C-alpha cells in the first residue's frame, strides 16, 4: 500500500494548480478518491462527521442492481437460445447473454462517463458519483438487442439534457436514466417496442416454429373480449412462476421479480431506498388493478380482469417502483409527499398500461410525469407544515 500511496502522491503534482495537467484534475481526483479514502477534514464547528458519503450511497444502489444485471445477462442468452431451438447449457447461455448485454452496459458507462468527465473538467468541479447508478440503470431498461449507437445517443441525452444542463447531480428534476430511455423510445420506437425483446442468435428463418416475439403484456392486452387473460397467458407459455422468477422476454433487467426484491431488501435495510415510495407504488398499482377487475364487465376489454398478482408481476412495474421511482433527487423531499407521489405513480402507470392502447407499459411515463409534479406536492405539504409552526420572524 505504501508503494501505491507514493505513486499516487507523485502523480498528484502533475495535476495541481499551475502544473501541466491542471485541467484534468477532476479525472485524477476521481481515481484518487476511488482508490483511497478522502483526505479532507472538517473546517467548521461540526468537527466530526457521519461515515456515509455519496460514494457509499451510490455503490449500495449499484450492488442492489447486481442480481438484476447478472440475471438479465443469463436471461437474454436463455431467451435467445430458446427461440433458436439451440442447446442451452448454463455456460453457453451465459456467454450468449454476455455477448448481447455487456456491450450495452460498457457503452452506457463509457459514453455517459465521458460526458460526466467532460462537464466536470469544463466546470472545474469533481466528478459526481450519481452517474455510477444512471450508467447501469439505463441499460437494464433496454432490450438486449438495442443497437449500440442508440444506447450511446440515449445515455448522452439522459446525462446531458436530463442532468448536466441543470447543473449536475442533485440539481435535475427528471430521472436521468428514464429520460435516456424516453429519448430512445420516442426517437427510435422500432427498436425499443414491438418484437424486440428477444435477442436474435440466428436469423429469423431459423427460429423454432412456436416462437412468437410477444411479451406477457402484449398477450394479455390482445386477449379477446370475453376470454380470460390468465388462459391466454398460459396458452402463450407464461406462468405466474416464470413471470416471478423472470425467465420471460423483456428488457434486460426488469423481468425477474425475485432479483428486484433482493435489491429492494438491500436498499430498504440500508435506508437508502425510500420505503414510502415503494409501498406507495404498490398500493396505487394494486388498488387500481383491483378496481379494474371489480368494475370489469363481460363486455369490457379482457385485460381489465387480470388478477392483481399477475398484473404486478408482469412488465417492469416492480423494477420501476424499486429503482426508478426511488431516485432521491427527482422524488419529492418530504415524507408525506412521497406517499402521494408513490400512489399516483402506481395509479397512472397502471392506467396507461391497461387502458391506453398506444403504450404497452406505463411506468416510464408515469414516473416522468410525477417527477414534474414532485415540487408541487412538496410545496403543498411544506405550506401545511409552515402553518403549524409558531412564526419566528424578525
Amino acid at each position, binding site marked *: *500500500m505504501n508503494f*501505491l*500511496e507514493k505513486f499516487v502522491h507523485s502523480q498528484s503534482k502533475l495535476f495541481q494548480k499551475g502544473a501541466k495537467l491542471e485541467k484534468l484534475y477532476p479525472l485524477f*481526483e476521481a481515481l484518487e*478518491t*476511488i*482508490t*483511497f*479514502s*478522502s*483526505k*479532507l*477534514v*472538517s473546517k*467548521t*464547528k*461540526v*468537527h*466530526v*462527521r*457521519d*461515515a*456515509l*458519503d*455519496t*460514494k*457509499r*450511497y451510490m*455503490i*449500495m444502489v449499484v450492488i442492489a442492481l447486481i442480481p438484476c444485471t447478472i440475471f438479465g445477462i443469463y436471461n437474454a442468452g436463455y431467451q435467445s437460445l430458446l427461440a433458436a431451438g439451440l442447446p442451452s447449457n448454463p455456460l453457453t447461455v451465459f456467454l450468449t447473454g454476455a455477448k448481447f448485454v455487456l456491450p450495452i452496459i460498457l457503452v452506457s458507462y463509457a459514453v455517459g462517463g465521458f460526458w460526466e468527465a467532460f462537464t466536470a473538467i469544463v466546470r472545474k468541479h*469533481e466528478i*459526481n*458519483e*450519481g452517474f455510477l447508478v444512471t450508467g447501469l440503470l439505463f441499460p437494464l431498461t433496454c432490450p438486449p438487442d438495442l443497437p449500440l449507437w442508440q444506447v450511446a445517443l440515449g445515455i448522452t441525452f439522459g446525462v446531458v439534457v436530463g442532468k448536466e444542463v441543470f*447543473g*449536475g*447531480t*442533485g*440539481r435535475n428534476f427528471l430521472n436521468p436514466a428514464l429520460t435516456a430511455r424516453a429519448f430512445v423510445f420516442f426517437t427510435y420506437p422500432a427498436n425499443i417496442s414491438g418484437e424486440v425483446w428477444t435477442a436474435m442468435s440466428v436469423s429469423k428463418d431459423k427460429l423454432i416454429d412456436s416462437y412468437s416475439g410477444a411479451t406477457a403484456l402484449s398477450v394479455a392486452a390482445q386477449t379477446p373480449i370475453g376470454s380470460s387473460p390468465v388462459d391466454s397467458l398460459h396458452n402463450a407459455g407464461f406462468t405466474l412462476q416464470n413471470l416471478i422468477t423472470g425467465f420471460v422476454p423483456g428488457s434486460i433487467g426488469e423481468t425477474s421479480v425475485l432479483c428486484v426484491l433482493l435489491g429492494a431488501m438491500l436498499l430498504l*435495510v*440500508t*435506508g*437508502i431506498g*425510500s420505503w414510502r415510495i415503494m409501498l406507495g407504488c404498490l398500493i396505487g398499482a394494486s388498488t387500481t388493478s383491483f378496481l379494474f377487475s371489480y368494475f370489469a364487465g363481460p363486455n369490457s376489454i379482457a385485460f381489465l380482469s387480470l388478477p392483481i398478482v399477475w398484473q404486478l408481476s408482469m412488465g417492469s412495474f416492480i423494477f420501476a417502483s424499486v429503482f426508478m421511482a426511488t431516485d*432521491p*433527487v427527482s*422524488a419529492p*423531499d*418530504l*415524507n408525506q409527499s412521497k406517499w402521494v407521489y408513490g400512489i399516483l405513480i402506481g395509479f397512472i402507470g397502471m392506467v396507461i398500461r391497461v387502458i391506453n392502447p398506444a403504450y404497452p407499459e406505463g411506468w416510464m411515463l408515469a414516473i416522468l410525469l410525477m417527477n414534474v409534479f414532485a415540487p408541487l406536492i412538496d410545496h403543498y405539504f*411544506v405550506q401545511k*407544515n*409552515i402553518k403549524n*409552526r*409558531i*412564526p*419566528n*420572524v*424578525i
Partner: protein
Amino acid sequence: MIKKIKVKNTFKLNCTGKPSTELINCKRSKNIAVLPSSINHIKPKLLLKLGDKVTTGMPLFIDKRDPQIQFCSPGSGTVSKINYGPRRSIDEVIITLDEKETFVDFATYTSEDITSLDRKDIVNYLANAGVWPVLKSFPFKAIPSLDDIPPSIYVSLDNDEAFTPQTEVLLDYYSNELKLGLTILKKLTDKCFVSCSASNKKVQKLFSTHITHHITGDYPANDPGVFLYYNKKDKSENNSWGIKIEDVIRIGMLCKSGKYPTERIISLGGPLVKKPIHVKTREGAEISSIIDGQNCGLNSRIIAGGLLTGRNAGKNSFLGYYEFAVNVIKEGQDLEILSFMKMGLDKPTVSNAYISSLIKNKSFEMHSGLFGGHRACIACNACPSVCPVGIYPQLLMKSVKAGDLEESLQHGLLDCVECGLCTYVCPSKIELSDIFEKEKKRLSKEVLG
C-alpha cells in the same frame, strides 16, 4: 406540577473518551487570556493597553455598540501581549499572572438578600462584575441590553453534547452557587423555566423546588433553544433568554464570594485523551496546561467546546468566556484503500449503510475526517430526521442560498439552535450549520445594529 417534554429527532453521538466523574486540578497557568473576537454580536473596545496592570474583576473590554456591557479580567497581573487577527480584530489579550491574585470587591448576597433587591440593582450588579454576558437572548443568542425585560428565561440544568461537563460533578461542588444563581434569575423575569434531563435523578432530588420541566431525549434535547421551541405557546416568547447550568453557577459564585468568578469545572474528553476526566481550571486558562500529561500526540485537533459546536483551538490557545470543555480528536482519517467498499465495522453512521449499525451503542474513535468530498444535495432526507426543531434543513439551505429571506424565516431559520446534527449526517458534506449561522449573523447585523 412538573411538565414533561419529549424532544423528537435527537441523536446520541457515540464517541470514545467520555470523561469520568473524577475531578483533578489543572496545572497552574503562567498566562491567561481573554478572546474578545470570539464573542458574537459585539464590537470589542479594549479599555487597557499593553503593559497595564490588572486585578481580577477589573473591566477589560466593552461592547462599542452598548458600552454598558462590559467584560472583566479573569486574573490579576500584567497585560503582556495583544494578538490581532484579520481587520484588526482583537483575538487574544494575554495576561501574565502575578504570584498572588488581587480582586476587585463586589457585594455578596444570600438568598434572602436577593429577594429584597430591586431588579434594576441586580442588573447593575451583574453588569459591573462582567457577569451579565452569560445571558443570551434568542433568536440570535446575543447579549441582551441592560434595559431588556424578557418574556421568560429558559434554564437548562443538564448538558448532553459530547463531551461537556456532567451535572453530577458540578452538583458535588457548586450546589449552593447554583441555588443562588437560580434565585437571581427569578428576579429578572416573571416566568423562569428550569429544565433537567428526565434521567438525572440527582439534580431532580436536590433542586425539586426549582425544576419546572423534565426533558427526555439525547443531544440536543437539553439545549435552552430546544426547550424554548417545545415550550413556547406563541410568538411573544421568541425573544426569551436562555442560560446553561455552568453560567448560572457563575452568577451564584459572584453572589457568594463577592469576587469575579474565575474558577470553573470543565470536561476533558475525546479519543486522544489518555485519561478523560473533569478538570478544575479557570477562565482563560492555557489549553496546553489543561491537556498536560494526556499524551495527545502530534496529529490531533484540540477543540474548545463540544464535538459538534466547539472551536478548533489548538494547543497554544486559551479557554474562552463561554467554553467549558476541551475535546481532543485525531486530525483526519487514516489512509484506507477502497474505503467506500468496506464492511465498515469501525465507521459511525446514522444510516444502516455500514455494518457498524448492527451493533447497538457501539462507541467509535471519531476524528475530523469528512469521509468524502463536497457534493450537491441529493435529497437523501437524512437531515430532517435529526432536526429537533422540525426544520427541513435541505429546503432551508436552498432558500438561504437563493437569498429568499421570507421563505427562510417561514421554514424556521430563527428556530435553529445550531446543534450541528444536520451537518453531521449529511452524506454530501454540506456545511448546513455554518450556512445557517452565517445567515443569522448577517440578519442580526440588520436587526441589532
